C-alpha cells in the first residue's frame, strides 16, 4: 500500500482537459464520460497508469459499493466516500436523473453572468490540458501530488473558470469550490467512519450503522420512501455574537478577537474541514451527530472567549442535507415522509451562574464585574471584557478627532446570510426559466431542477466574491479624488479600526460629499461584483453619522440591524432606508436641483405632518410640477417626501443637519 495521502479533490482533474481541442481530439481517444480515465488506454501516451492512492479517485463515478472489484481493497473506502462527498457537493442532487439543458461554454455565475467572458477576454482559460503532453503532465501530477493545496495552487485559474457540470442550468458552480467542498466532506466522513471487515466482507461503519452501498448511507431523493439513508449528519449555520456593548473604543477589540478565533478554527488541522465557509461573524459547519461529536466541545474556544453562538442546525440523512434549510423543511413536511430531517434553532453559551452579587460587568452584563480604575475613571468589568480592553487601542486616531463641529460616519457592510439563501434561489429559478439553452426542457423537469437545487457551493462562491468586494472597498476608498485631484480619504480620515476587518470603518464627514462618495463606491462595487443582485441585494450598507462623542454602542445598534440595502441615520434628526433603485434615482435627480428644492421639501414635510394627508402633499407637488418636475417622478417611484428630504439633507454640500 502506498503511504501517500488519498486526495479526493483530484478525482475531477479530468474536467480540466479540453477534448475539443484539435491537438488532443484528433490524436487521443477519450474514455466515456470524457472527464474520467478509469478505462483509459495509456498505451496511446506510451506511459503506465499512475499508481498513487489518488489515482483510484478516477473510479469514484462508477464505484457505488464496497463490493466493487475495480479498486484495490486498500482504497475502496476512500473511493466510495469520495463518491458520497461528490454527490453532496453537487449543486443539483444527482439521484433524480439526467434532466438538464444543453452544454454551454464556461461557468455561469448567477449574480454576475458576464464573469466568465470577462476572464476569457482578460486572457484566462478554463482548460489546463489541451495536448498529449498536457495529459502526460496531468497523470504525472496525479502520481506526485501530495496535498489538496498543491492542486489548488497549481490549477487555481483553470479550476475557477471551469464549471463542475457544463450543462445549463447546473454550470453555476466552479470546479474550485466544488472540489474544495468535496474534499472537506470526504475528510469529515472519513474521520468519523471506520472501515471494518466482517466475515470477509468490507463495511463502512458510522455511529453503529454499517453500510456497503452509497445509497445505504445517503438515502434517495426527498420524496422517495426508503429505509436507506442511515448516515445522519448536521449542517449548521453559526452566528457568532457577543454580549458586549461599546462604551470605550477598546471594546471594539471584540471584533479582532472574533476574527482571530474564526481564522484559527478554520485553519486548524483538527477542525478546518468542518468549516465549509465563513465570514467575519458567521461559519457554516458540517459535522456528525451529537453522539459522535459534541458541538459545545467543538466550539468551546468561542465560548471561553465570551461569545454566544446562535445557530440553525439541520440534522438529516446525508442526501436530504441542504443549506436552504427552511425551504427544505417545509417541503419535507408537506410530503409526510418517514425519512429523517430535523431543523433546530439553538444557541451555545458559557455557563452563566444563577445569581450574581453586584456589581455586574458594565460591558457584557453577564458576569460579576471587578473594579478597574483607569485615568481616575472607575468601571466594573469581568475578566473576559477586561481582557478585550487590554488587547490594544483600536481607532486611536479616532479618539483624537477633536475638530469643532466635526461629524464622524460609522460605516458597516453586512452580508445577510438568510437573505443570501433566498436571493440565490430566486436567481437560480430565473436562470432555469429563462436561459435559451433550457428551451427544450419540459416545465415538469424545470420544476424538478428547481426543487433539487442545493445552494451550499453557490453560497461558498458568493462569499468569496463578497470578500473580494470588501477588499476592493478598502483599496478603492483611498483612490477617490476630490475636486483638486487630491485623495479625499487618507489613512488619517478614513479608518478601518480593526486590522483586515473591512466590513467596518469610521470616517470624517465635513459635508454630504463624503457620504455620497462612500455610497457611490459601494454602489459601483455592488454593480461590478453582483450586478444581478442590485434589486434584492443580501449585501447591505449602513452609515451612522454623529458628533465624535456620540455613544459608540448607539452607532453599533443601528449598524447591526440594516433594514434595507442602504441605510443612513443622523441620530435625532433623520433615518433613511432605501433600496438600490431608489438610491440611483435620488442620486441622479436630487443633486441637480438648486437650493430652492430644500425649502419646498421642508414645506411638503410640514404639510404632511399638519394634514396627515398624502393627498395634500401630492396636490402640492402636482401644483409645482413645472418648478420641480423630478419630485413627481421620485414620488411615483415609491419614495416618500420624507425620504427625499432626508436624502437631500444628508448629502447636501453644506451641513444642514
Amino acid at each position, binding site marked *: 500500500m502506498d503511504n501517500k495521502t488519498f486526495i479526493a479533490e483530484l478525482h475531477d482533474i479530468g474536467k480540466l482537459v479540453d477534448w475539443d481541442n484539435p491537438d488532443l481530439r484528433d490524436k487521443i481517444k477519450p474514455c466515456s464520460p470524457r472527464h474520467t480515465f478509469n478505462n483509459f488506454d495509456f498505451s496511446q501516451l506510451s506511459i503506465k497508469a499512475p499508481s498513487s492512492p489518488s489515482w483510484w479517485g478516477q473510479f469514484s463515478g462508477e464505484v457505488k459499493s464496497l463490493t466493487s472489484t475495480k479498486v484495490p481493497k486498500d482504497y475502496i473506502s476512500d473511493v466510495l466516500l469520495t463518491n458520497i462527498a461528490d454527490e453532496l457537493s453537487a449543486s443539483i442532487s444527482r439521484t433524480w436523473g439526467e434532466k438538464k439543458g444543453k452544454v454551454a461554454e464556461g461557468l455561469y455565475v448567477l449574480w454576475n453572468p458576464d464573469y466568465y467572458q470577462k476572464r476569457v477576454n482578460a486572457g484566462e482559460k478554463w482548460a489546463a490540458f489541451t495536448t498529449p503532453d498536457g495529459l502526460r503532465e496531468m497523470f504525472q501530477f496525479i502520481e506526485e501530488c501530495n496535498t489538496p493545496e498543491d492542486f489548488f495552487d497549481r490549477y487555481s485559474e483553470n479550476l475557477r473558470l471551469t464549471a463542475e457540470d457544463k450543462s445549463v442550468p447546473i454550470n453555476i458552480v466552479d470546479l474550485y469550490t466544488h472540489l474544495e467542498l468535496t474534499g472537506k466532506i470526504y475528510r469529515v466522513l472519513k474521520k468519523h467512519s471506520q472501515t471494518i471487515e466482517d466475515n470477509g466482507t468490507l463495511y463502512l461503519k458510522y455511529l453503529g450503522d454499517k453500510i456497503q452501498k452509497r445509497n445505504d448511507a445517503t438515502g434517495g431523493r426527498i420524496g422517495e420512501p426508503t429505509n436507506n439513508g442511515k448516515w445522519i449528519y448536521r449542517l449548521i449555520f453559526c452566528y457568532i455574537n457577543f454580549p458586549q*456593548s461599546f462604551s*470605550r473604543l477598546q471594546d471594539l477589540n471584540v471584533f479582532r478577537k472574533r476574527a482571530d478565533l474564526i481564522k484559527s478554527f478554520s485553519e486548524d488541522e483538527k477542525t478546518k474541514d468542518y468549516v465549509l465557509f465563513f465570514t467575519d461573524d458567521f461559519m457554516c459547519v458540517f459535522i456528525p451527530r451529537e453522539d459522535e461529536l459534541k458541538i459545545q466541545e467543538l466550539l468551546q474556544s468561542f465560548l471561553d472567549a465570551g461569545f454566544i453562538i446562535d445557530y440553525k442546525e439541520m440534522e438529516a440523512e446525508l442526501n436530504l442535507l441542504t443549506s436552504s434549510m427552511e425551504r427544505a*423543511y417545509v417541503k419535507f413536511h408537506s410530503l409526510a415522509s418517514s425519512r429523517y430531517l430535523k431543523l*433546530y434553532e439553538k*444557541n451555545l453559551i458559557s455557563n452563566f451562574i444563577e445569581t*450574581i452579587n453586584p456589581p*455586574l460587568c*458594565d*460591558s457584557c452584563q*453577564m458576569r460579576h464585574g471587578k473594579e478597574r480604575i483607569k485615568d481616575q475613571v472607575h468601571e466594573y468589568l469581568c475578566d473576559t471584557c477586561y481582557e478585550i480592553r487590554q488587547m490594544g487601542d483600536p481607532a486611536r486616531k479616532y479618539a483624537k478627532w477633536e475638530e469643532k463641529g466635526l461629524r464622524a460616519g460609522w460605516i458597516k457592510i453586512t452580508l445577510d446570510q438568510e437573505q443570501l439563501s433566498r436571493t440565490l434561489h430566486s436567481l437560480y429559478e430565473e436562470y432555469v426559466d429563462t436561459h435559451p439553452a433550457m428551451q427544450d426542457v419540459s416545465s415538469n423537469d424545470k420544476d424538478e431542477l428547481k426543487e433539487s437545487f442545493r445552494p451550499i457551493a453557490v453560497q461558498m462562491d458568493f462569499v468569496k466574491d463578497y470578500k473580494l468586494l470588501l477588499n476592493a472597498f478598502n483599496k478603492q476608498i483611498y483612490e477617490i479624488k476630490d475636486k483638486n485631484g487630491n485623495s479625499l480619504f487618507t489613512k488619517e480620515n478614513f479608518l478601518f479600526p480593526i486590522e483586515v476587518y473591512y466590513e467596518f470603518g469610521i470616517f470624517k464627514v465635513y459635508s454630504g460629499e463624503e457620504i455620497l462618495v462612500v455610497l457611490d463606491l459601494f454602489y459601483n462595487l455592488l454593480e461590478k461584483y453582483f450586478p444581478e443582485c442590485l434589486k434584492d441585494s443580501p449585501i447591505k450598507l449602513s452609515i451612522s453619522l454623529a458628533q465624535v462623542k456620540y455613544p459608540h454602542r448607539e452607532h453599533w445598534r443601528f449598524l447591526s440591524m440594516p433594514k434595507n440595502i442602504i441605510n443612513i441615520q443622523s441620530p435625532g434628526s433623520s433615518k433613511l432606508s432605501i433600496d438600490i433603485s431608489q438610491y440611483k434615482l435620488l442620486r441622479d435627480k436630487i443633486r441637480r436641483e438648486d437650493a430652492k428644492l430644500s425649502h419646498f421639501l421642508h414645506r411638503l414635510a410640514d404639510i404632511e405632518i399638519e394634514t396627515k394627508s398624502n393627498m395634500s402633499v401630492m396636490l402640492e407637488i402636482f401644483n409645482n410640477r413645472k418648478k420641480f418636475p423630478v419630485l413627481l417622478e421620485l414620488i411615483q417611484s415609491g419614495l416618500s417626501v420624507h425620504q427625499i428630504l432626508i436624502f437631500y439633507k444628508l448629502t447636501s454640500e453644506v451641513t444642514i443637519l
Partner: protein
Amino acid sequence: MNESNKTFFHFELETQAIAIGERIKGGVFRPCIETIPTSTLKGSFRDYFGLADASAIGFFRERTYEKDTFTYAPFDAFLGTAKLPIFLEYLKPTNGTKAVIADIYVVKNGMTETLSKISPTEIFLGALKSKGFGRCYLTYIGEVEPNHKVGYLKGRLLEEECNIFGISKVIKSCHGYLFYPTSEISGVYKRALFEGSIIEGPDILIEEEYKYDY
C-alpha cells in the same frame, strides 16, 4: 415544569414619557428597553398596591411609541457640582398617537385577586420620576386565559418565574440578568430569560411562532 394554564389580569398602561433603562453600561448613555420586565413591575405593584409578590410582565404596543433622548446633568451633592451630562433614552408617543400604551399581564392568584377591582390608577414606573418621567395610568381591562404556543419570548422575566407564568418548556435561552431586591438597600442579579428565547407557554408572552423542531 408545570404545564397548567394560567389566568392573567390584563391592564392597559398609558404614559407620555417613560424610561425603563437597561443597566448603565459605562459611559454617559442610558438606553431604554421596549418591554417592561417582571422585576420592574414587581417593585411597582409592591409600592402602589401593597402586593409583596405579584408577578406581572408588560409589553409596549407597537406603533404607539418612538424613542427620543433627554439630556441632564446629575448633581453631585458631595462636591456641589454637576456631573457629566447623561443622555437618557425614553419612549414618547409617536406622531399621531395620544400616549405610549403598554399591555400589562398580572398572574391571577389569591393575592392579586383584588387588582381586578381597582379603578384607573396612577402609578410611576422607570427612571427619572423627579423629572416627570414614568407617570402612568393603569386601567383594568379584563381576565385572559391564553392558549399555549411555542414561540419567541417578547419580554424579560426571571428564569425562576417560568413556572409562575405558565411556561412549560424553555427551548432556547437568551440569557440576561435582572436585579432582584433582597432588602430595601440591597439585592442581587438573577439569571433571566430575555427577548428571543424560545419557549412553550402562554401566547400573550410570545412574539412570533416557532415552527421547527425542539
